């Protein structure tokens, strides 16, 4: 990532520098406020000039985000932010491009653009604010709503099995996959730091509370101050949690996860850099329902050729091989013939 600081300016930005003059318009108590605050105080440490940072969003409550970040930004159309960001990132590798999206924006109408951006490994950081509901349109169920959810559009309960955003991302060949919680500023900053350090596409699911239409959807882990159900993943460290770190994860011979005592043997040591995606996938299947704990942090973080880098390389190679394009030559390429002025 360019340090965006090629212009001799010294960086001394603070959270305040990232606020805009626009009145923030989320409902009182919306989790988006916390995410915005965390982001604004994290940005300065990135050491990137504001003008070299771009936030692109789709449509939704979450998608209002760019208006509140004093950088370049685009509030685009529903579900298309990953595609738009791809065009920008591919043509401007000097920029740091974030995508802010919601569970409906990213996984419903925008699902295809999301998975393609991930497999291409375009250098965009995709932040999915997951509140498991359509907020902006006032409370219909979303692709992450639990089966049987009663909402405005499903008075008898929803019929579709939800996506697990992390499983989907890993299945789509994502090179960086992580999860954070709106109210966990420290944890979110760690994840954002890692995401920005990762060259290529980064996918971050952020549990976000919607007090109006889906209050406490994540209470089990969001209000979990004691860490009873929050499983903090740290690369290279054994996966332990619980009030006194007494619980741990262990992998069965079939690759699935089981809960064991922290003291027992074969406690799984987290390896976010593991070459195969199987481990990260197995971890993504660990949920409150299935294991009484919810992993947060970086699930996967591997290196793979980055689409925009490859594109840049091809341009360099082509130019070296064939010389900078010459328009006159181009037009005269192929068979030409000349007709002289008619004899006087």
């Amino acid at each position, binding site marked *: 990532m360019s340090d965006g600081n090629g212009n001799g300016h010294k960086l001394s930005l603070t959270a305040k520098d990232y606020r805009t003059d626009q009145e923030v318009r989320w409902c009182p108590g919306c989790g988006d406020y916390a995410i915005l605050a965390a982001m604004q105080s994290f940005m300065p440490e990135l050491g990137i000039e504001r003008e070299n940072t771009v936030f692109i969003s789709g449509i939704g409550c979450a998608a209002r985000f760019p208006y509140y970040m004093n950088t370049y930004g685009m*509030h685009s*159309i529903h579900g298309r932010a990953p595609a738009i960001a791809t*065009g920008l990132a591919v043509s401007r590798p000097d920029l740091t491009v974030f995508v802010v999206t919601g569970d409906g924006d990213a996984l419903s109408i925008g699902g295809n*653009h999301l998975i393609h951006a991930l497999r291409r490994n375009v250098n965009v950081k995709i932040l999915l604010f997951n509140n498991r509901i359509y907020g902006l349109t006032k409370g219909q169920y979303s692709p992450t709503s639990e089966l049987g959810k009663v909402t405005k559009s499903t008075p008898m309960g929803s019929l579709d099995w939800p996506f697990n955003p992390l499983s989907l991302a890993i299945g789509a060949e994502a090179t960086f996959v992580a999860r954070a919680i709106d109210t966990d500023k420290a944890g979110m900053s760690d994840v954002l730091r890692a995401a920005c350090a990762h060259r290529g596409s980064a996918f971050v699911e952020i549990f976000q509370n919607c007090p109006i239409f889906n209050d406490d959807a994540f209470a089990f882990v969001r209000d979990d101050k004691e860490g009873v159900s929050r499983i903090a993943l740290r690369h290279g460290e054994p996966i332990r949690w619980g009030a006194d770190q007494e619980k741990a994860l262990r992998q069965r011979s079939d690759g699935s996860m089981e809960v064991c005592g922290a003291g027992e043997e074969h406690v799984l040591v987290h390896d976010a850099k593991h070459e195969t995606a199987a481990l990260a996938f197995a971890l993504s299947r660990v949920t409150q329902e299935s294991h009484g704990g919810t992993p947060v942090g970086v699930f996967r973080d591997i290196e793979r050729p980055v689409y925009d880098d490859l*594109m840049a390389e091809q341009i360099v190679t082509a130019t070296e091989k064939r010389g*900078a*394009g010459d328009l006159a030559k181009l037009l005269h390429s192929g068979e030409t013939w000349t007709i002289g002025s008619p004899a006087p």
Partner: protein
Amino acid sequence: MAKPVQQLSQVIVRFAGDSGDGMQLTGAQFTSETALLGNDISTLPDFPAEIRAPAGSLPGVSGFQLHFADHDILTPGDSPNVLVAMNPAALKTNLRDLPKGGTLIVNSDAFNERNLQKAGYASNPLEDGSLDEWQLHTVPLTSLTVGALKEVKGVTPREAERSKNMFALGLMSWLYGRSIEPSIEFLQAKFGTRRPEIAEANVRALQAGYAFGETTETFAVTYEIKPAKLLPGTYRNITGNQALSYGLIAASKLSGLPLFLGAYPITPASSILEELAGYKNFGVRTFQAEDEIAAAGAAVGAAFGGMLGVTTSAGPGIVLKAETIGLAIMLELPLVICDIQRAGPSTGMPTKPEQGDLLMVLFGRNSESPVPVVAAHSPSDCFAAAIEACRIALKYRTPVYLLSDAYLANGSEPWLLPELDALPDISTTFTTEPNSEREFLPYLRDEKTLARPWAVPGTRGLEHRIGGLEKADRSGNISYDPDNHDLMTRLRAQKVAGIAGDIPELAVDDPDRDARVLVLGWGGTYGPIAAACKRVRRTGRKIAHAHLQHLNPFPRNTGEVVRRYDKILVPEMNLGQLLKLVRAEFLVDAVGYNRVSGLPLRADEVAHAIEAMVDS
């Protein structure tokens, strides 16, 4: 002793055979041999539908028509004078176009049981006399070719047989006095290094065909077509999609902005993506997206970043881009959308041309969302049209539609290469400073063009946010104010309407300025309409022809032009779309000539329609 030579002023030749017979290559080579002789030319390939059909079957027939003459011509011609049919299916599907008395050259070897039956012939037409009304020449092309290649080492019988198209080319070259040297060079270049034996086989077949003409009795005379009096200069033959691609590259150079193409493959637009993908050394970025929406979206993202953003597709893909183009209209960012029109609706007939998308590109978005529209009128004109579309997009910060069609895209004609310094200056600069004391107002417009400033990410101090919600005049902040919305809606419309002052007036071809009837066309029908007008004038009738390159806005004098005539005929490859616009705009009782057959309009049919109107 040399055979008698007969002078002709023009000839229309059609090569037809199985998809596997290499008719496109044959036609292309005959075209370059002919171009080098200085004839004016116009060609039209006729592919089978996208999917491959079984060898020898009717849907598998592939054709290539070439019209060449000693004067300037405008179309590939309505019906051929000479038909070369490589198999029964080719004969069956093409004979209907060959006028009685026309020359028919047939590969008799291919007329066996299986092929005849595949083509649905009860009896062999070469024998049952059903072809008596044509000048039939049966030539055992396959066996002659195979025979001629006996000595060539290292080619399989199949490969030998597949050189028969070169034998046909040689024969035709002799018949019309073309030199086969260029083709020999071409074949050497194409196969020489990789498979010299294949090169040799093809060259030998070519020469054998040429010799066959000279030596055998089959053909009594040869023909000569004198060079055409074309404007002096350097020419090359070019197809519409190639010219369009060059135009985009030129616009990139002229504007100083790198070209970004977001595209998803679709017939007949794919070859633009494929062509441009070859020019990375021009800084061209081609992005094959997951779908048309992403292709357009990526182009918008690139435009936000300061690139020349372009997206290409055909009808079924263009409709998918509508929402994204609506966003670009709100963002007021430059974007060029190329619609290579094909027959519809829905999947329709993917390889066939039509003009059915005009109203869609004008109105196919929610709410009031004006977009300028430019249409190319011939294969080589796609170059200029592409530059013009980019010029408008960049200068007015707006999406612009560029319309072509399957006929222009694949058809070719000689192109008088332009002088670079004759190309328009469209150099573009970004806003780098606040535009109102110490503040940057993204929607503070240029008084003249009403264009908004274009400040790209990376520009210190001009950080701003834009989006699809209605925005306040000047500041660009979100606004729900009723009067502001009414104002912005009108400003967006005025900006586009104002372009009328920045485009050439509509030119009218009315030689003696005394015609009472005007033919008004647009886009790909230029050739047939202009040709039709020539014919009509030859009958002594008066007729005026005007052809629109700009469909939105119309040239400022369009109303004045249409009102000047008593009657107006609007020929279109649709059910009357320009017609609707002209009637609504100018309240003139224009009449349409409409043919929606998936084929270019025929000059003779248009001519009849004109004559009927002139005489009525």
